[in-house]
């Protein structure tokens, strides 16, 4: 895997997909994110790392406005995708989220069949005009999530009956099915065993050929394995952002170094 990544290391030529400028997030009285500015590139895996409670998940949820569902969250600053401000009043979060998909920490398949889980997004967004197209989207998505071979014979079985790793890949397939441009992953492997984790990590590496992937992880090894760019968060600040290899081998900020060497976190 390491050698595969070696020739994909060059990400500078990809253009910027998401750009944030001076983002502040408040949870009630709590200042959760302090002035974060960064540019996330297309067709790249970007990892957010940092000790728990550092705000990396909060920041991730700003990128597709999932924080809207929390009453007390307040966001300032600017976040734009393809140059369009996502907090512009004209933006419908529903459309935004179709473009910026999300995979959650705990696998959360709906209590429906595997097929219906994946078909849910295309159905609500009207991506398929007939049953054949829908079948095709479902199959493609399951293939892209590298789970097709395991479930193709039991598409009508409930999604909740799969193992944890399969459930998470099903959730990835579900997110892929709405043909997003960005995939946000909030610690997607934290509830999985090592084998399932390896499968999902492999999948993430494949996904970057089509999508801009942003992954929050508490595991530095995982960030090193799957990402090209890494941002380190600490107590709501984004401390350092750069090429993954640079961050891990030659951190600029003493806090990053302390975290990487295991002295904070």
């Amino acid at each position, binding site marked *: 895997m390491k050698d595969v990544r070696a020739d994909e290391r060059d990400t500078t030529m990809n253009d910027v997909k998401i750009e944030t400028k001076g983002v502040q997030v408040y949870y009630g009285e709590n200042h959760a994110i302090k002035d974060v500015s960064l540019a996330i590139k297309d067709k790249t895996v970007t990892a957010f790392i940092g000790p728990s409670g550092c705000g990396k998940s909060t920041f991730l949820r700003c990128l597709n406005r999932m924080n809207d569902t929390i009453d007390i969250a307040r966001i300032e600053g600017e976040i734009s995708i393809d140059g369009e401000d996502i907090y512009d009043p004209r933006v419908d979060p*529903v*459309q935004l989220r179709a473009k910026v998909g999300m995979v959650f920490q705990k696998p959360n398949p709906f209590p429906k069949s595997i097929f219906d889980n994946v078909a849910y997004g295309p159905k609500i967004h009207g991506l398929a005009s007939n049953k054949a197209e829908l079948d095709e989207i479902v199959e493609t*998505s399951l293939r892209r999530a590298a789970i097709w071979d395991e479930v193709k014979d039991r598409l009508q079985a409930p999604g909740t009956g799969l193992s944890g790793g399969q459930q998470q890949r099903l959730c990835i397939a579900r997110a892929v099915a709405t043909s997003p441009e960005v995939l946000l992953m909030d610690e997607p492997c934290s509830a999985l065993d090592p084998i399932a984790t390896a499968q999902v990590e492999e999948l993430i590496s494949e996904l970057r050929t089509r999508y801009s992937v942003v992954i929050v992880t508490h595991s530095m090894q995982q960030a090193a394995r799957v990402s090209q760019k890494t941002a380190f968060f600490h107590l709501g600040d984004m401390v350092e952002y750069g090429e993954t290899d640079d961050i891990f081998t030659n951190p600029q900020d003493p806090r990053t170094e302390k975290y990487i060497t295991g002295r904070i976190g």
Partner: protein
Amino acid sequence: MTAIPDTPSRPSSILEADARTRKRNAAEKRFRMYGLGAIFVGLTALVLLLTSILMQGLPAFQQSYVTLEVPLLEDTLDPSGERNIDDIAGVISFGYNGLIEQAVEDAIETQGIEIEGLDDPAEIVSNQAAAQVRRFVLANPERIGTSETFRFLTTSRVDQYYKGQVTMASAERDSQISPQQLQLAEALAEAGLLEQSFNWNFVTQPDASDQRPEAAGLGVAILGSAYMMLIVLCLALPIGVAASIYLEEFAPTNRITDIIEVNISNLAAVPSIVFGILGLAIFINFAGLPQSAPIVGGLVLTLMTLPTIIISTRASLKSVPPSIRDAALGVGASKMQAVFHHVLPLAGPGILTGTIIGLAQALGETAPLLLIGMVAFVTEYPDAPPEGFFDPATALPVQVYNWTQRADPAFAERASGAIIVLLVFLAIMNITAILLRRRFERRW
């Protein structure tokens, strides 16, 4: 692999909503409106229910009274002139009717009222009047021969006339009142002899017969309900708390415990009328307790309230954290001591709240009481407890039912009035429960 188009079919800009999104957002708005509409309907129903009851029932607290000077004629009341109380008591209420008639005619004369075609002017006074005068005379026999001023209830027809339920036109067709009698009432009102005032008797007096709706009151019903609540409190609270303590703190996980638990949750959902059948079959037919007695009502309501109290008590016991029990056991208390010295006092406010809510439920319960004979027509107050528990009585909600079954429309107003009294009691109980909960609510 057939690909999903890598360039999505949706518009590239997120700043403009496409047609489908607009449609979906409209559906969203509609869905929201359904929800809001449902809440609106629910609240409207509540408002309609309460206002209609209030509108119909509030007049029951106002009653028309007529003030008359009644000559207590010696030859009618005490022909022998010996003031022998037994002789005076020998004149039954019926014998006093002439005096009332006389009093009304006197009033017409002194006020100079002239109404053409006026028959039976005394009909505007309640049938209750004769009994009222008789009671006075028996208490004050020395007044015989003088004349006394009395404040009588008018008949319900005159009263309803002032409340807008009886009109001149309806009086035309009514055998119990004539338009001329209503004119007489108007004339007496002008002279200041007939007026409306607050009617305490409605709350304190016992029920009255079909012919005297104006005199019917809630006294016996309130007393009966109070007795039953007392019985429910004295039985359901200790038994319910004991059962909850056993189930929550001591019960081993076995078959018997399971059966008891399933039993309790099912009992909570058994239709109340089934408890009435139980009361009738076991307490009255088998155990031979008297019908219509608060003791039977109290027992039936106790059995009905027990599951409610047990469920809420168990919830309060459960909310006391195990660390409290551990702390007590850790200093060498027995399990029983840990529960009675620490857990129970901490759960106390919750238990009390649950008990009050259970009592409120029991207070409003009607159906089982119908079956154990509490619909009876009772005009005598029950004695003081404990003997009074075995005397016939009615209960507030049953009195409401009873009055709805009477022919005279004036009883509808009284039924609604009784509901107001019932709701006031319920409101007091529930507000007490809420305040208790607020005051003692403890977050662990």
